[in-house]
């Protein structure tokens, strides 16, 4: 009984701030302005403007996820091979930016990348051509990778660090060279970590509107921006909710696919 009581605050919290808002989203999404049931808000995703924003978001977040994976995996391996006292220091260095506010970090990138920003001033002083990536997809990808990279590194690091040294030793002992050992043993054993890393990068990247607002300068319209604008500028809560439901279903669909692909089923949905 007492253990059940302990969960009461959280149950209260989740009812108030998760269940109720979710129900509200479904209510608005499935009704029109007069309150009558409609699927029009859901179907609105098919309009060229909305589907373009969804695919732009999918494309950019996929590219960012792949870049994160390629950067994070070697980094996680380096962390694993470090002596304990060094590795914790490196992990702290790595996590340090995460202690600063997400918005601040993204705004910092904006002032770094601006046409007359810090990087271009330095380049100009060196008589080099200016960097012109602000307000492009590349700037948004850079922002996504920068902000979400730690979420890829940590789960991969966690699985790699748990692989018994004797398992890789056994592979070497049985005749595998270092490359074979990596592809036949280490990589397959780290799949669960990669999957949770991919989920933790892909989902927030897919739904972001802040990064595309700040670094895309309003020119890069992702599905997150469209939904945000429906709520804050067009005041069309019904359409915003409808598109949110589509995005949610899209994410759930993707997670189910990844969970099925991962035989061990050790996927952490975070």
């Amino acid at each position: 009984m007492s253990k059940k009581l302990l969960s009461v605050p959280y149950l209260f919290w989740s009812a108030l701030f998760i269940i109720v808002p979710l129900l509200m989203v479904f209510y608005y999404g499935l009704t029109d302005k007069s309150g009558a049931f409609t699927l029009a808000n859901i179907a609105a995703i098919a309009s060229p403007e909305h589907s373009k924003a969804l695919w732009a978001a999918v494309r950019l977040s996929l590219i960012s996820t792949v870049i994160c994976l390629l950067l994070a995996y070697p980094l996680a391996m380096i962390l694993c091979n470090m002596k304990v006292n060094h590795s914790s220091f490196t992990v702290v260095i790595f996590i340090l930016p995460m202690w600063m506010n997400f918005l601040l970090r993204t705004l910092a990138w904006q002032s770094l990348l601006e046409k007359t920003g810090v990087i271009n001033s330095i380049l100009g002083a060196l008589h080099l051509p200016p960097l012109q990536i602000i307000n492009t997809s590349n700037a948004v990808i850079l922002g996504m990778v920068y902000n979400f990279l730690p979420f890829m590194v940590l789960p991969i690091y966690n699985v790699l660090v748990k692989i018994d040294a004797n398992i890789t030793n056994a592979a070497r002992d049985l005749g595998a060279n270092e490359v074979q050992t990596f592809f036949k043993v280490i990589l397959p054993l780290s799949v669960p970590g990669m999957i949770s890393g991919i989920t933790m990068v892909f989902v927030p990247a897919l739904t972001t509107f802040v990064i595309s607002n700040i670094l895309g300068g309003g020119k890069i319209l992702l599905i997150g921006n469209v939904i945000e604008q429906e709520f804050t500028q067009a005041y069309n809560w019904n359409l915003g909710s409808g598109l949110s439901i589509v995005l949610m279903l899209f994410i759930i669909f993707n997670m189910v696919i990844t969970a099925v692909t991962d035989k061990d089923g050790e996927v952490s949905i975070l």
Partner: protein
Amino acid sequence: MKDVLVDLNNISKSFDGHLVLDELNLYVRENEFLTLLGPSGCGKTTTLRILGGFEKPDKGQVIFSGKDITNLPPNKRQLNTVFQKYALFPHMNVAENIAFGLKIKNKPKSYIDDKIKYALKLVNLDGYEKRMPDSLSGGQQQRIAIARAIVNEPKLLLLDEPLGALDLKLRQDMQYELIRLKNELGITFIYVTHDQEEALTMSDTIVVMNQGYIQQIGSPERIYNEPENAFVADFIGDSNIISSTMIEDRLVEILGARFACVDEGFGTNQPVDVVIRPEDVELVSPAEGTIQGRVTHLIFKGVHYEMEVMANGFEWLVHSTRMVTPGTEVGIKVDPFNIQIMKKPESEDEEAVGVNE
């Protein structure tokens, strides 16, 4: 005498300035079952890792079949290791685990399939091909680990405390299993353990190690019956180690009483250490004994009784199938053949000095 398969020459190794192996010399003959025995931190596992190629010695050479393999990576060595806690690949089933080394060597599929069948039969696990490692018991996993190693037909199999994680009964069964396997395969085994009973049961040769030095090399009988120093005597089984004086050849004074013995050449009136195994101490009537004492403790151990006898200021450990109740006055008699005389180490350090054959 058979050919030497492995020769370790002057191997030294230290970790973070701490010397683990100091000028170790050891050779292993073909088809020998050699056990490295010692307490944890004695350097036995490091020796094995150097043989396997997982550590490089700071100094010295590893000669294998006449070739210097000191700088060869593990995958280029004609030997295989059975790791402590098995180290099976958790994402592969039993057949894939066993096939790992053969697939790396690009052996044909029919050859690999035959080998898997043969190896599973050899370790008494026919039909387990499709099982995943985590569905097997510890003993079964260990057999698979052995099967995975031997399908590669190594000349030498290294075993790193392979039975350490198993319970007593299973451990004893696996000991016989390993002896049978070795005889069937006709390959050389180097076995690392801290369990003296395991070493005595299985080995042709035991190498007792302590603090990076070899203390004694010999057959199990020799190691047990004629320990060369107090460390070996103490580590291999229970024993009474008593500081004594060698009066002359074949006569030793233990705790003030003179015992006949069979050792010669220690000089006259020299301080020595005497080792008497507890099962060699005979309890007789006080009149018949060489020295007299009183039984202080009695414990039933199953096969025998373990007693402690206080005699001339020393607590003698006695194993006997005959029970003597505590408080009884007894005499102690020892057959001259059962008194093992050892030279006293002159200092603490000398106790650890290498005594190679």
